[in-house]
């Protein structure tokens, strides 16, 4: 049963949420939109068209966080785990980002689960916003999501005339709702169409393409920076190190990417991936082959962020269609 919330009611709702929760929402920062905690309702810039520069994964796997700190007093050592202090609500994320979070749940909640991640997930409600228009590089429908897919959020909003349709999906969502929302009887906007990207056929062929020179050639123009991994909602590799600062020791976890030079380099000097081609290939194989084999789902939600952000235009849709041509050429079909 769909409800309706007007523009003003939404502002009041956000203010109410701000009283008891951290609210993370899209905010305008230097000409870009970023997910950030907001202090007042009107800094929230809901947009049913474009995506934020960075995905909202940063709330569940922050760029940097302390896992635990080491308390030392007279020889005694105590490990104090980081705690999640407050409930939160992630407001205004599109269905592709919500799917990204659901995909990241698979490795992080798989036993033995990451307690910090699990705590944040359980104490954060997801209020999604359906897409009315899509950007040219979106291809979520080819990756098992859709502009109006409510499956990974607690509430899904859809923008209509002076307000939003409120589709309650979970109990957690229901508990968030303001009182007295009227039922929405109007027309639900039809989701926009998206171009299809032939992922299924390509994934089955990827085993044979591992040693194809395509990867070395594609990597020629790659800069090997970490942009694609850091903007991506489903890249979750991380690094861990200790910080000893004036007697206080903390174990810190930070984002890392398989494109970084030391990613797979061992202290003894052994590194299975030293060339540019090998590292670029690892990113596509982890997303399109290894993750699906481990978790039965492709680690790409078709949000198009890597396509927009890559300085040298390594476009995952083009890679997938190139792979299809390479397979056809190989099998002579």
């Amino acid at each position, binding site marked *: 049963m769909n409800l309706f919330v007007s523009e003003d009611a939404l502002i009041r709702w956000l203010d109410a949420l701000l009283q008891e929760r951290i609210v993370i929402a899209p905010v305008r920062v230097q000409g870009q939109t970023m997910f950030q905690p907001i202090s007042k309702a009107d800094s929230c810039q809901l947009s049913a068209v474009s995506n934020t520069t960075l995905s909202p994964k940063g709330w569940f796997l922050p760029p940097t966080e302390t896992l635990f700190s080491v308390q030392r007093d007279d020889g005694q050592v105590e490990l104090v785990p980081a705690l999640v202090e407050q409930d939160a609500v992630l407001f205004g994320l599109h269905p592709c980002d919500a799917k990204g979070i659901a995909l990241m749940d698979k490795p992080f909640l798989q036993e033995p689960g990451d307690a910090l991640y699990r705590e944040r997930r359980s104490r954060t409600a997801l209020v999604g916003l359906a897409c009315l228009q899509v950007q040219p590089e979106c291809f979520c429908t080819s990756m098992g999501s859709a502009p109006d897919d409510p499956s990974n959020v607690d509430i899904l909003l859809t923008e209509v005339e002076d307000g939003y349709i409120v589709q309650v999906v979970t109990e957690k969502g229901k508990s968030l709702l303001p009182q007295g929302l009227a039922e929405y009887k109007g027309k639900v906007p039809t989701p926009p169409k998206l171009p299809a990207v032939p992922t299924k056929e390509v994934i089955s062929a990827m085993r044979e393409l591992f040693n194809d020179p395509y990867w070395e050639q594609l990597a020629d123009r790659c800069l090997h920076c970490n942009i694609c991994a850091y903007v991506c909602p489903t890249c979750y590799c991380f690094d861990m190190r200790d910080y000893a600062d004036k007697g206080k020791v903390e174990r810190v976890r930070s984002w890392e990417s398989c494109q970084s030079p030391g990613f797979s380099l061992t202290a003894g000097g052994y590194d299975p991936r030293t060339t540019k081609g090998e590292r670029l290939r690892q990113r596509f194989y982890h997303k399109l082959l290894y993750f699906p084999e481990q978790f039965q789902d492709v680690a790409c939600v078709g949000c198009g962020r890597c396509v927009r*952000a890559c300085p040298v235009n390594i476009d995952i849709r083009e890679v997938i269609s190139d792979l299809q041509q390479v397979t056809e050429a190989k099998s002579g079909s």
Partner: protein
Amino acid sequence: MELIQQIRDKARKLLEEGAVEGIIGYEQASDGLTSRPLFAYDPSATERLIFDETCAHNLVKYLLDKKGKKMAVVVKPCDSRAINLLLNEGQIERDKVFIIGVGCPGMVETNWNHKSETLQAKCRSCQLSKPLVYDFLAGREIERQAEEETYSDITEAEAGSVATRREFWLEQFGRCIRCYACRQVCPGCYCPVCFAERLEPLWVGIRIAPEENEMWQTIRSFHLAGRCIGCNECERVCPVDIPLSLLNRKLEKDVKGLFAFQAGLDPEEPPPFATFKKEEKLEFGE
């Protein structure tokens, strides 16, 4: 377009004669609007070579991945200063590079799937009608009606208080996500192990936080002092739009002022930190 055809013909001839192993140029990007680097190894691929006002990438850095191979590279006037820098620092051998120079109309501000009409800031003040060094000039020299580079934005910031500048830079550095694209794209950044990756001593560390970001950006830009050739690729590739040229051009202005030197103009002249003048005082009294 006559310029493009000249580039394609020259590239094809170089490959067919075996004069070079590959061509590094530009081709159309998958948004059908902007461009991207192209590596052509067989003559047929040279048909994809283009050159227009979206070819902002500085292709010279790619030569560092192809050391020992004879490559041809399409070079704009500003990019040619990177050739001089890398020659001066012994990173490339002149006889290993065939330079296809182009007269440059100036590059426009582009973003993915978006091409504006406004020239990039570096192009508005560019006086180079053709590359400083080349083996073949495609198209012709293009006289630049350039505005004088007055560094007005820098002097304006310098006029402000230390506190306002501190606040400005903390906010900018606070947004850095340490993707290192500014390093990976820069022709002057080629250390085998970057100081940011050293563990002992831990100069920067893995925390992506304002303090570590400030350490990273301060030293990265200072390592380019007297070496940055102003191609401004670092600012263009930054995914969070940090105005990195405000760092590079501040150092460029001060190096000009203190040492009357500009990077990449002459491959023989030693850069400022590799030499000195006994009699210069530099505000330290003696």
